[in-house]
């Protein structure tokens, strides 16, 4: 759906025309049907990458293809593309109804009044249709943006920080709309700082750092970045093996973490000591933890590992057979 190869973007800014290298050899691939999230620190180049995909900026070098074509302003390839910018980049002088009609008409088709009214009704905007966008809340403006995706069959949707400044109720509602659009077969590319939200919505993630992609993978793979660690909880003789880290005692219950290579040692230990094992599972990592692991250290190493496909297939649980101890919820 989207291919970016060795994309460099350089521009000059300010009175002294200070050169800025916004993208530095960005390589990216978004597949059809993906809910793709671009993650990175401020100034990492997420928005610049999105602007390049939308043809709003031309790369200094490299190749970008969106649906097999090079994007440029007003290109016919945008027939199936929708874009929801950050506030306040809408036509604020238009009313909700006018803006919905205008943005929908920009696809070159006549939109019947009935379709507009039904869409506004569905989004809960019918009672505000004469209100100017300048006086609407951000949530209402974003709904106007969503309306164009519901009126037309959007194949590719770009979202730039879509939930920034929205209240939790609207965020939830917005998330549902996005899920619906995605379930209709649209590919969604989202740029966001809210990692918890990406965790809920995206299936693929690219982490951008200093203008290039350091990790691009399935979200579920990124969430198991600490796959070497298994968390265990057991009851028994009170003995704690020395390879158990992050030990916590809750009465007779002992909780801790074990490196993958010591897992079989622990199994033997539990069998010999007759422990009652409540939990032994792969330690889940949040996207936030993965993000910090990658950005603050070792990101490049992880990336090279992932590129070479050297890491093991994800195992959510380990259930040792032939154990003489008791294993629960493992």
């Amino acid at each position, binding site marked *: 759906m989207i291919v970016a190869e060795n994309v460099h973007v350089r521009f000059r800014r300010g009175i002294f025309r200070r050169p800025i290298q916004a993208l530095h050899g960005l390589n990216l691939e978004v597949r059809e049907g993906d809910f793709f999230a671009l993650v990175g620190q401020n100034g990492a180049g997420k928005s610049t990458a999105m602007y390049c995909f939308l043809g709003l900026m031309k790369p200094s070098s490299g190749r970008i293809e969106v649906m097999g074509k090079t994007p440029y302003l007003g290109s016919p*390839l945008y027939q199936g593309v929708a874009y929801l910018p950050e506030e306040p980049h809408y036509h604020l002088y238009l009313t909700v109804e*006018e803006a919905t009609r205008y943005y929908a008409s920009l696809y070159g088709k006549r939109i019947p009044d009935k379709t507009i009214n039904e869409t506004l009704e569905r989004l809960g905007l019918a009672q505000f249709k004469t209100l100017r966008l300048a006086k609407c809340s951000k949530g209402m403006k974003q709904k106007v943006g969503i309306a164009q995706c519901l009126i037309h069959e959007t194949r590719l949707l770009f979202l730039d920080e879509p939930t920034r400044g929205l209240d939790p109720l609207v965020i939830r509602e917005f998330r549902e709309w996005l899920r619906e659009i995605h379930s209709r077969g649209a590919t969604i590319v989202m740029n966001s700082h809210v990692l918890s939200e990406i965790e809920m919505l995206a299936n693929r993630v690219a982490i951008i750092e200093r203008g290039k992609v350091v990790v691009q993978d399935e979200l579920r793979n990124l969430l198991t970045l600490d796959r070497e660690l298994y968390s265990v909880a057991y009851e028994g003789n009170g003995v704690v093996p020395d390879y158990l880290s992050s030990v916590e005692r809750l009465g007779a219950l002992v909780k801790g973490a074990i490196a993958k290579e010591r897992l079989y040692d622990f199994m033997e230990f539990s069998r010999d000591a007759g422990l009652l094992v409540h939990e032994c599972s792969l330690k889940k990592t949040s996207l936030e933890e993965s993000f910090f692991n990658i950005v603050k250290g070792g990101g490049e190493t992880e990336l090279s590992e992932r590129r070479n496909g050297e890491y093991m297939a994800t195992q959510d649980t380990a259930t040792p057979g032939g154990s003489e101890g008791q294993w629960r919820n493992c």
Partner: protein
Amino acid sequence: MAELLKANIMAHFAYYRRSRLLLAFLLVFLLLTGLSSLPALFMNSGVQSFNSLHQIFEVLNVFLLFFAGGLGLFIMSSHLRSRSLKMVFTKPCPPALWLVSVFWSAVTVSLLLNCIVFASAAVLSFVWHLPVRAALLFISVDTFIASVGIIAYLMLLTTLVHPAIAVTFALIFNADLFYGGYEWTQSVIRAGNSSVWLRILDHLFHYLYFILPMVYAFAKKTENIYSSFRVSQGEWKYLLFSFGYVTVLSVFCYSLALLALQRKKHI
């Protein structure tokens, strides 16, 4: 394509209707015109009424020129500065079409206002028992043609630079200024001073006068119509010439503005 053009033009009309800047601009000029024409309402003689009509019509036509400039300036600067164009150009609506829609919408509003001013002048002539002169129509058409050129020029300048710089440039660095400069250097040269710097300045003023757009390209030929309110059969051709000049100017301004718009980062 027609649907796209229509959608854009309708959105621009909504902008003109709701732009407070344009509204303020309109009200100030109407107020000034109203105040200046107030004494005329208490005049009885035909000559005084004619003079009043002449004055009111002249003021309104100058206002139309300024307002046309405002239309081109405000709509371009508003869209460029609010960065809302990213919502347009990320759809299958090319900048060329959007720019045409802006131009046409501004020209339509300008035409409408010209018609209103012409109709008002005709009504005043009727009320004050004056003949509706053909010169009224000539001046209205000529002003409309000049307005089209101003709209195109201001749209170009606003695409290139900050609106404040665009206004300053349009007001100060215009063809009239350099024509005045050219006349001055010519008179000094004729008086016997033929230094190299003066000759360079003379050439510079001459070329700048030709390069910069003129509001009324045939002002010298038509100034008599504006002062006497009489137009002869042979003078109507100047409208056609003006139209030709403005068409070339508009195409030139449009092409440059389009180039600038395509090169701009709409982010």
